[in-house]
């Protein structure tokens, strides 16, 4: 694993990498299996996190809040 590429791989996943650096990383990933595996794992975690369900509080929470404000 080339640790010097780590931050750029995260930025690649976040879509915040500039065009030149992005092209450089993509070239590196094409030839480096370890960095490619790291990229795939980080992307899998990011995608799984983004698909976690939104949670809703029970109605009782608002009733308690409103009761204490009245």
């Amino acid at each position, binding site marked *: 694993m080339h640790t010097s590429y780590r931050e750029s791989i995260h930025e690649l996943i*976040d879509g915040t990498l500039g065009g030149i650096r992005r092209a450089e990383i993509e070239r590196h990933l094409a030839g480096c299996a370890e960095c490619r595996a790291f990229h*795939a794992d980080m*992307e899998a975690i*990011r*995608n799984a996190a983004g698909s*976690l369900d*939104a949670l809703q509080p029970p109605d009782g*929470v608002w009733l308690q809040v409103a009761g204490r*404000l009245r």
Partner: protein
Amino acid sequence: MTTSKVTGQPVSRPPAGSPARAEDMALVERCRRGDLAAFDELYRAHAGKLFSVACRMLGNQTDAEDLLQEIFLTAHRKLDGFRGESALGTWLYRLATNHCLDYLRSRTARTNQLNDPLDDEPGHFQAGKSGLAEQTVAKMDLERALARLPEGCRAAFVLHDVQGLEHREVAQALGIAEGTSKSQVHKARQRLRALLLERH
């Protein structure tokens, strides 16, 4: 100068003079005048997001329900101080994460829990170990691993990767620099990878 609850370091306030948020300010103004229906509207708009953050920060739904009450009661009390320098949602995220971090620290003090040993070491990439990408990352496994992250990087990860805030907004919500938000999220992903691979 205020102190970040994430890093413990002094931080600057968010830059003043960002565009006024007319809708937020109108709603806040109605709340300030004691309009409970307006506060109900504010609650409906933000409770789900803040509850999701609290559940994932505390790892416990019952505690999150209690804390959500306190978050909104504090928000109601502090609305006079809201100046529209950031979006109302970001201001509320900040209030919520501060409540969560205070709660976690007092719980740690009560139970004398030690930080996870991963706190000082980002998850190391282990060459040769089967990768996560070849399997599906199960939501339940991710939720469990999330609860084991150190609280600072857990907060940044929940806000950025789960809630979808930009690093600029995470930085405002947590009172940290944008670069710190990035490094905390990156560390969190690497630690999660190590934790998730332990299960396989």
